[in-house]
């Protein structure tokens, strides 16, 4: 078989490898892209989480600041309201104590107040009190210059009989700086009648530091602005920039509206200041760690996958390059796997075989029943012989061939049998070789037999020669004596005659022992099928026929009974007749080179003898026939027409057949050639039963 055929399975190995490499590269690129996307997503998620955490933090700080701002505004309002009560109380104690003394006391208690005055209804100043904590605020800039708004405030207070506030105003001070001041006008009632107004002047910085500042932290900055944003007063360090948080709170007082602005600095190490951010960070770290582990695991998995693919490819290559056919069947007998060698062996494509149940396409139709039975036995759980068994498979083209099958249960990883695995070896070539060598051996045996015959003939001739020689000598001696007319001749001759008789007896013994030997073989007769006899000699006949380019046809009547014979002797007879026939056809002048061996039922015996059932064998050739001169001596021992022949063949054949109770005869064939035929008795009916 040409080796190119064996490679027919995979079309082009290099191409496959090329495709594999490009495929692997694209898979690798896609995998990398996926990984990149995953990392980016994780980073984005982390960023978002951190940002959200920061936002949340900022929101919380902002909310806190807003609350602080509200609280601060409320504080201011409440303090101002309390101050109003104090101012009213100041009016009520009159006249028991002088107003100015009371006022001075009040100013000492409330540092935010810088100036108190009592005015009458026409806003004429009645009493004035200054705070003791600073120089009188109106010392540089006269009070009269900065009371434009006071009238409006006081009239509003008079109208509503409630305190009212003026707009704030800037008053330069003696230290070169200035103060932003606010007037609070409280109507002054006595016995249900308004006598005038008490005007309290607040320094806005004082308001912030005294009323708000104490509750604020160092990092907070509070200021008061006008509605349009101009800063009026501030307290604390100013906060600016990106880190600043600002809360605005409207501070509306009757007659005046300001905005309280509270600023705070977000702490610099605020990135992970709280549990949430920490948690997020920890989780992110854990996530990254998991990612790294996952990547490592994936790499390991990839490597294992690669190794597995390599191993699989090696296994596949191994299975493909195997000369032994492999076949797996599942438990229901369907083919689940075949390797290329098996397909090549049977000539079917894998798709024609896979999934195919019994009968398999490579079973010869005539053996399907037997194989079905065998498979049933196998599927019942019987383990086949370890040394394998022989079977006959059929190729797709119908050719039968002998295979040697080793079958074993297929056990999966969890120790369950999933089917049967078979290794199939095509042994047809070996069988043919064995056949040839057996034929050679048989030929050797035949020649050995011939040599044995020669040896026996030699021994026999010696054994017979001795007494014959002695007889001859006695006879000659006696004749000599008779011729010599010697006086004592008679006695001597009598002695010689005795000796002759003895030696003749001895020769007879030799013959008898040969006869006994032949008779012993009678015990070996047995009933044997006619076809078996022919089958036994066919290899040898076919061998010679091939050499002489002769066609051998055998024809056995189908219902022919078995014959009773010594099969080795009868085989020898058949062989001899077949050889004679073939040798008769040796030569170029015979165009029809056919040797016919036939067997049919016939009646034994000739003429008046009772007709016994028998089998008639005939061997016919298309040779030149037998000439009358040869025919006369045909069965004479040691008569031969062949250069190397012994001349025993036909005479032995006749002897053998007659010993079996049969009859050997010959006749000329109608179309030229000779037919030798002989009969053999069939096996007795009672023995057959």
């Amino acid at each position: 078989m040409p080796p190119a055929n064996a490679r027919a399975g995979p079309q082009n190995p290099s191409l496959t490898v090329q495709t594999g490499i490009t495929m692997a590269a694209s898979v690798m690129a896609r995998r990398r892209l996926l990984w990149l996307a995953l990392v980016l997503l994780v980073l984005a998620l982390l960023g978002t989480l951190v940002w959200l955490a920061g936002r949340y933090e900022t929101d919380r700080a902002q909310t806190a600041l807003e609350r602080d701002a509200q609280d601060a505004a409320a504080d201011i309002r409440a303090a101002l309201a309390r101050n109003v009560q104090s101012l009213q109380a100041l009016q009520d104690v009159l006249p028991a104590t002088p107003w100015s003394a009371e006022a001075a006391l009040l100013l000492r208690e409330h540092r935010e107040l810088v100036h108190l005055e009592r005015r009458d209804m026409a806003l004429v100043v009645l009493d004035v009190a200054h705070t003791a904590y600073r120089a009188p605020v109106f010392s540089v800039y006269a009070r009269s210059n900065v009371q434009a708004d006071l009238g409006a405030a006081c009239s509003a207070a008079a109208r509503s009989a409630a305190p009212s506030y003026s707009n704030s105003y800037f008053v330069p001070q003696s230290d070169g700086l200035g103060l932003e001041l606010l007037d609070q006008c409280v109507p002054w009632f006595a016995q249900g009648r308004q006598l005038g107004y008490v005007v309290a002047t607040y320094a806005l910085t004082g308001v912030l530091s005294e009323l708000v500042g104490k509750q604020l932290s160092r990092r907070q900055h509070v200021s008061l602005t006008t509605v349009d944003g101009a800063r009026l007063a501030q307290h604390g360090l100013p906060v600016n920039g990106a880190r600043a948080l600002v809360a605005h709170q409207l501070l509306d007082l009757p007659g005046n509206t300001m905005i309280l602005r509270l600023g705070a600095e977000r702490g610099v190490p605020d990135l992970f200041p709280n549990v949430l951010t920490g948690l997020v960070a920890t989780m992110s770290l854990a996530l990254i760690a998991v990612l790294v582990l996952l990547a490592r695991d994936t790499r390991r998995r990839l490597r294992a996958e690669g190794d597995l693919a390599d191993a699989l490819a090696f296994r596949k290559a191994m299975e493909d390059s195997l000369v032994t056919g492999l076949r797996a069947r599942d438990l229901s007998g369907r083919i689940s796997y075949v390797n290329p060698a098996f397909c090549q062996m049977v000539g079917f494509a894998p798709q024609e075989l896979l999934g195919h149940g019994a009968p398999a396409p490579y079973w010869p139709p005539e053996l399907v029943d037997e194989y079905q039975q065998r498979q049933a036995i196998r599927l019942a759980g019987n383990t086949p012989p370890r040394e394998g068994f022989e079977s006959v498979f059929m190729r797709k083209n119908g050719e039968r061939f002998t295979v040697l099958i080793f079958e074993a249960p297929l056990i999966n990883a969890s120790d369950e049998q999933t089917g049967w695995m078979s290794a199939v070896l095509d042994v047809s070539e070996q069988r043919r070789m064995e056949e040839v060598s057996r034929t050679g051996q048989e030929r050797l045996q035949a020649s050995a037999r011939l040599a044995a015959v020669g040896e026996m003939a030699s021994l026999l001739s010696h054994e017979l020669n001795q007494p014959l020689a002695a007889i001859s000598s006695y006879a000659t001696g006696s004749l000599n004596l008779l011729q010599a007319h010697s006086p004592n001749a008679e006695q001597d001759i009598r002695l010689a005659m005795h000796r002759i008789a003895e030696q003749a007896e001895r020769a007879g013994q030799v013959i008898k022992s040969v006869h006994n030997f032949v008779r012993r073989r009678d015990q070996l007769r047995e009933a044997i099928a006619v076809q078996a006899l022919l089958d036994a000699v066919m290899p040898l006949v076919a061998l010679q026929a091939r050499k002489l380019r002769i066609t051998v046809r055998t024809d056995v009547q189908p219902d022919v009974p078995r014959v009773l014979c010594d099969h080795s002797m009868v085989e020898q007879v058949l062989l001899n007749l077949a050889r004679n026939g073939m040798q008769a056809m040796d030569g170029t002048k015979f165009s029809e080179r056919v040797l016919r061996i036939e067997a049919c039922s016939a009646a034994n015996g000739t003429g008046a003898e009772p007709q016994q059932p028998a089998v008639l064998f005939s061997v016919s050739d298309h040779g030149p026939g037998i000439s009358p001169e040869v025919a006369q001596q045909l069965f004479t021992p040691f008569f031969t027409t062949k250069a190397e022949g012994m001349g025993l063949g036909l005479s032995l054949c006749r002897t053998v057949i007659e010993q079996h109770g049969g009859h050997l005869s010959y006749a000329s064939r109608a179309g030229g050639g000779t037919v030798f035929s002989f009969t053999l008795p069939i096996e007795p009916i009672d023995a057959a039963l």
Partner: protein
Amino acid sequence: MKIPTVYVVDDDAGVRDALAWLLRSRRLLSECFESAERFEAMLGDAFEVKAPSCLLLDVRMPGGMSGLELFEKLQARNLVAAMPVIFLTGHADVATAVATVKRGAFDFCEKPFSDNALVDRVEQALVHSAQVLAQTAEQHVVAAKLQELSERERDVMRLVIDGLPNKLVADQLDISVRTVEVHRARVFEKMGVKSAVALANLLRNQTNWGE
């Protein structure tokens, strides 16, 4: 002359007896031996053929020394010339037979043989044996006579046989013609011959006569 004897060596008693009987019917004396070993024992170590004799020897004698082996031993002892050997063969082994004849056997005979023809050959062998014996005896006599010759007589005799005249013999041996004549007369007398031709005939069969 002593009585001629035919020795028969054959393992088959019938054949032996029959042959002896046959020979006796032709008035020939025979001695039978059932094996080559027996025959050899009879010969002993210092056997000499004194009477004309002949050996009928079977080639094939199962279980002992074969005829061929015995023949080789006899040949080694120089007995074959005086005692011719006729082989008896049971089956025509032509190759063996021819080989034995080439090596000095007198003849071979195939069993079953034409009996009187065999006896004829036996008689011929005995005649041959007798001739050999006679020749041997004559050689013994001549050798004895040669022993009596002196050294000088032998020298003269050698030259005389070569056909040289007395004068040349004298020149060769550096002696006088007269002395040669005396020596020559003494040689003729001692050897019992009358002429140089008779002397040469007498010495023709003598291989070694004192070089």
